[in-house]
């Protein structure tokens, strides 16, 4: 594993979520979770671009499969490594947002919206000060159909967890 892959494994271990890649929802949740972790200031080194389902990193998909394979083969090189304390603390603070007892598809929908809004706000494609209808309309342009209630809730959460001012 290179250090980026080790960082990925450590971040997921700290968050307390297993690395699951079997279904599309599993992979989507991973993508958006890491996107949000990085947005919180834990720099794992993944570049995200905007694709059909929001921010996506192809390198992250590759690394996730590699890490899973290495762990399953008994070659987990993250053993003996820890994240720095500051990053651990930040991830701990995100647990209530990023860990869920909801069913997978509900959780996937939620994190997709959170990560997408954060990404678009950072790129100034949308603003927190726009109306919910405007934001909803913008997202519909990407075939993302979210209610204004869902959008409002996500914006509140982004603010609450320090992603936006």
């Amino acid at each position, binding site marked *: 594993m290179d250090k980026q892959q080790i960082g990925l494994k450590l971040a997921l271990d700290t968050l307390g979520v297993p690395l699951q890649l079997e279904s599309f929802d599993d992979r989507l949740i991973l993508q958006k979770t890491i996107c949000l972790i990085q947005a919180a200031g834990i720099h794992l080194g993944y570049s995200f671009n*905007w694709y059909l389902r929001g921010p996506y990193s192809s390198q992250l998909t590759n690394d996730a499969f590699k890490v899973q*394979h290495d762990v399953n083969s008994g070659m987990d090189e993250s053993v003996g490594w820890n994240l*720095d304390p500051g990053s651990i603390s930040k991830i701990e603070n995100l647990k209530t947002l990023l860990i869920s007892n909801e069913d997978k598809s509900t959780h996937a929908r939620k994190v997709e919206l959170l990560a997408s809004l954060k990404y678009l706000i950072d790129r100034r494609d949308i603003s927190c000060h726009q109306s919910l209808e405007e934001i909803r309309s913008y997202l519909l342009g990407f075939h993302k159909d979210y209610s204004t209630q869902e959008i409002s809730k996500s914006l509140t959460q982004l603010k609450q967890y320090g992603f936006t001012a």
Partner: protein
Amino acid sequence: MGSQHSLSVPHVIVDSIHGDIHLSDLEMKVIDTASFQRLRYLKQLGMGHVTYPNATHTRFAHSIGVLGIMARVTDLARDTLELSSEDVQDLRLAGLLHDIGHYPYSHLMEHIDNIKLTEEFIESSESNKTLIASSQKYFDHEIVGEAIVTSQEDLVGAIGGEERATKIAKLFRREESAHSQLSKLIHSSLDMDRLDYLLRDAQAAGVPYGKIDLNYLLNNFHVSNKGVLGVKLKALTAVEQFLYARFFMHKAVYYHKTTFALEEICRQLLRRLKDNKFEGLPRDGNEVIELVKSKELNLFNDSFVDRIIEKAVQGEDDLIKSLASCLRERKPPKLLKEVSVYEQIGTEYHAGSAFKKDCRNRIQSLAENNEVDVRRIIFCETKQLKLEQRAGMLSEKEARSLEDSEREEIVKVFKSEAEEPVSIMNIDHSILNVSSNYFYQSFRLYYVPNFNESNTNELVNNMKEEVSGWE
């Protein structure tokens, strides 16, 4: 290369690969900027010239080559995607500027944060190692490119303003938030980038492995009604040959053991210097962005690293001096052992993974037995090289289950031009169905000599013998 019917392209650059490439006034303005001219001083193949002396071609030539290919593809796609002249111009500019953010020596600097030093690689019963995730890693070159294109005044001015510059950047970053049909062209299965560099790199290196039938491929590109780019079935052999060419170029040129060794030395050197906050080397990704947005951008070329190497040679630290001397004097480290494998995807245990495990467990004792600094023994591995670059260790069956956004690298073929293209893996008679289930990878162990030592040959022979005895 023909001219666009509605885009005026009065200028011509003669290219050694594609012949005449016709350029618009706007493209010439962009090329004439100092920010673009910087690409003349970035070698396309990083340190490839140490093995192939003629491989000194530049990112500048490659960027113009990609524009040339993009011009042909936009010609083809114009009607199906209803592209306006502005759309065509934007795509051509995206092709021209796709590498504007490259670091010195190709990908060497870009990924130094991922490098594991020997002391981080080896198994140790001592205290835990800390991975610092609180500082911003060096960004990848596409993000750096976006910063350059949207902030360097000469480029913004030449492109026609910040808004258009931002749009171009989104295109070369393959963002879907740009015009969705346009980004499908950049996001295509047969990468414009690869189509140029395989031919260019092979010609410069003087090897035959990168020869692809570019004309036949381009003449058989087709765009579906949904804007998906693929290749007609009759060009299947040309596609297969393209994928094999990429595979063999990696094996013979990009992963050549001498070039790879020196590049690894350079990565190790830069990583150690960065950790020691070496003056002149950006400390994190934010400093890289600051640098490329400033007037210092024009100095951020291969000479930037050459100057660092020269300073490092003059330094106090023996290891740093040795690493830097290897590079300055073109003295590659000594190869102690190489294990190459060609295995089925999903194979957990093979000779390479066994060798890697041995290295992790035994490098410390190897160093002690031979009384050398353990940090001079460097393990490295190439990436897994597969014919079809699908995600991770997926089998062919699993790869077929990926969503579109997850399989951008999978080549698409039109079984019938009236239908949407399918993955090449769905073509039963394609050779890819057999060979794409395997990967090639090489694992290498090197020793970096101390140029003060008088017994290097003896040391190396002893270490080789010891390592050859590892199971």
